[in-house]
């Protein structure tokens, strides 16, 4: 199974990079982009073929290392080789 882990700053945390990107887009004329939050994206190739196990494992490593819970939250998507599930 493949896990996709999206790590983003928590809503309460100011994201200076996202703000700078939003400002740049506004100066390019994309006024319709109201806000930008920058984050990190991880793809984990997992040995298991069980979606539930894959989700549990991806969440565990996200808690332990990929995200810092003080400032970040994360979301996990699971995809099997034969087709997408989440």
């Amino acid at each position, binding site marked *: 199974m493949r896990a996709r882990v999206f790590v983003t*700053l928590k809503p309460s945390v*100011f994201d*200076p990079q996202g703000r700078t990107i939003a400002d740049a887009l506004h100066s390019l004329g994309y006024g319709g982009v109201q806000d930008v939050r920058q984050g990190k994206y991880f793809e984990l190739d997992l040995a298991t073929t069980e979606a539930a196990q894959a989700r549990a494992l991806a969440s565990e490593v996200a808690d332990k*290392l990929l995200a810092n819970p*003080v*400032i970040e939250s994360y979301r996990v998507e699971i995809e099997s080789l034969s087709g997408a599930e989440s």
Partner: protein
Amino acid sequence: MKFAVITFPGSNCDQDAYHAAKDVIGEQAEYVWHKDTDLKGADVVVLPGGFAHGDYLRCGAMARFSPIMREVQAFAARGGPVLGICNGFQVLLEAGLLPGAMLRNRSLKFRCEHVHIRVEQTDTPFTSACRRGQVLKIPIAHGEGNYFAEPDVIERLERNRQVVFRYVTREGEATDAANPNGSAAAIAGLCNEGRSVVGLMPHPERACESILGSADGLVIFESVVQSLKSGALVARA
């Protein structure tokens, strides 16, 4: 008295810390490689500045898993004095030895300059020779020193008097302009609840000789020597 200076792959202020401890204040100092599993009988542990493990993922995130950190945790749990400088402070945060986390500087710029910090608390081993309210001129050099913790954590830190250093003007005033990175409550340095673990973003080891532009950092090293020699601290590695 012996200082252990922990060297991670990517540490680059370990020699400055060693020089300050050994050559400037004349105490023993020893480098301890991050894969080592003992602190060589040290009385004080310094986590130096730099970019431990390349700062991959997040600053300090990988260093937390270095074998020596288990010893540092145990040393800190026994009340041993631990000083984390810049990246060393980030490692202490990631390791959970101090609360909070670092964000990119508010300006998004790497700031490398002398700043002024005010000593808020003198009952830590690293500020015991300071005067409360004393202003120190010390350099910073970081891109991610924007201290963050949730408001209730900041409140608890203030209530427990764990904010040890704050960014201020030369005159000692905490203004927004004097805050070089956007840190919450202008926090430049913190201690743990036991007060023996101290982390700060500015580099006192780079300000121990007047030829370097300031010798104000010396008092941090002198404080811990004085604390240990007076018997106020007894933990040993």
